[in-house]
């Protein structure tokens, strides 16, 4: 049964229609080389936006920009209605309390146990010990890794580490989750487990998310499947249906070359997109 954390009251936006994340004309470069140029898109409440693109196209950079981990050279990034590129780091720490992030390799703290990794944010917020334990177990139950609570990251497989990273990202019931290639480098079966967890979070808790991947199979699984709570696994949407809240962005050479629905993506006439999808 699904026993994951419920969204907090903060999940309710002041303006329900207000986009969770907005990029406006954002550009960034490193050592004089442009990485992202004039990127504009938005993530609406409850949306799952899948960011596709070849390796080195700036997908992870975009995700770090969305969380304020790096700052753009130009343009504006708005998260929950607040412009983050002019915010001080201390203010960003507050805002990040509403954002969960799953890093490419999990980025678990290797000197801490699974319990302490998942509980990290709660401990920092001085949440009472009993509540910490309860919420950590809830989050670990969500990713079906309750038994690993006392283990260290080095004792876990790659897939398990990603699942712990997901548990850590959702433990404080965020309003936006950023997934950086959560299935990268994993075998197909483990990838499916991770995709199912992303889907579960989307369909059960309707959390807005931005997911970076270069695995088309995972992206289309998210677009064409839904999470069945009774069966506790993903099932195809009947009649070859598509999830209306899941749509795509595609990066190529630092430019956003696509922003639209699954249907539009597969019917695109853009030569790069056609080649990428083939």
């Amino acid at each position, binding site marked *: 049964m699904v026993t994951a954390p419920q969204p907090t009251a903060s999940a309710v936006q002041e303006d329900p229609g207000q986009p969770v994340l907005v990029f406006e004309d954002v550009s960034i470069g490193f050592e004089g080389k442009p990485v992202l140029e004039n990127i504009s898109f938005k993530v609406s409440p409850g949306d799952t936006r899948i960011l596709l693109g070849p390796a080195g196209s700036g997908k992870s950079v975009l995700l770090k920009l969305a969380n304020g*981990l790096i700052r753009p050279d130009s343009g504006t990034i708005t998260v929950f209605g607040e412009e983050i590129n002019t915010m001080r780091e201390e203010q960003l720490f507050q805002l990040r309390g509403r954002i969960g*992030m799953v890093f490419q390799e999990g980025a678990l703290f*290797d000197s801490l146990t699974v319990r302490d990794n998942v509980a990290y944010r709660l401990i*920092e917020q001085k949440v009472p010990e009993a509540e910490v334990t309860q919420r950590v177990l809830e989050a670990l139950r969500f990713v079906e890794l309750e038994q690993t609570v006392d283990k260290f990251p080095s004792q876990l497989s790659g897939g398990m580490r990603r699942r712990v990273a997901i548990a850590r990202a959702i433990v404080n019931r965020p309003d936006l989750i950023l997934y950086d290639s959560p299935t990268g480098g994993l075998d197909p079966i483990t990838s499916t487990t991770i995709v199912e967890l992303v889907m579960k979070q989307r369909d059960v808790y309707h959390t807005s998310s931005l997911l970076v991947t270069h695995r088309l199979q995972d992206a289309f699984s998210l677009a064409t499947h839904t999470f069945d709570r009774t069966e506790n696994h993903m099932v195809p949407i009947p009649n070859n249906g598509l999830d209306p809240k899941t749509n795509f962005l595609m990066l190529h050479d630092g430019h956003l070359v696509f922003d639209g629905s699954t249907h539009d993506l597969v019917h695109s006439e853009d030569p790069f997109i056609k080649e990428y999808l083939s």
Partner: protein
Amino acid sequence: MPLETIESIAKKLVLSVQDYALLTGRAIGNIFQRPRYIADLIVQADSIGIGSVPIVLLTGFFTGGVLALQSASSLAQFGATAITGELVSLSMIKELGPVLTSLMVSGRNASGMASELGSMMVTEQIDAMRALGTDPVKKLVTPRLYATVIMLFFLTILSDTVGTLGGAVISVFMLGQDGSQYFHTAYQTLQYPDIIQGLVKPIVFGFIIASVGCYYGMTTRGGTQGVGRSTTQAVVVSSVLIIAIDLVISQFMIGVFGR
């Protein structure tokens, strides 16, 4: 060398100094802001301070011993072996105690800090920490900085004491000198400026060790190779800075106190 390359190196150097200044400024200031990671400070003090005790004791003892041996040998030519204790105690307290202790702690801890923080950088653990709402400078750098400064101060006192004792052991048991005379001259020669000089140095050197170690750790790029590079650079830069700054402090102190 092309002009462009020189310009680029100069820019990188200036940028590094700026980043270093910002990092250390924030690390110092953080102690006045909440949250304060006192538990982390104690853990670091234990790791840096208590963990370094064996090497500091050994270094101090043998340095004092060899100093007594060499001094006595030279002083014998002038029939002045009676002041061996004076020479050992002044050398240990003003120079060798602070400098050698700092170099040992630098080798052990500047490298440790650079490799630990560097590994966290390249595995995105520092980014993860920021994403989880924690300031890594406050959580990782500030406790290391203050713990090193505090513990190096006491380690130096320990090293001075053990060094003077090491000199006494050599003087008495190998050179057949009078123990009472050794300790008497060692004590009598010391004046407050000597003690102040010997205690100001570890505070400055502790700051150098921790700030340089953390700076190289926090700016690590390029995977495991980058971690290795940062570790080496941290030890080299902190060691060279310790010796160079030692000269500056010594000159300043001699200028102020006249000895």
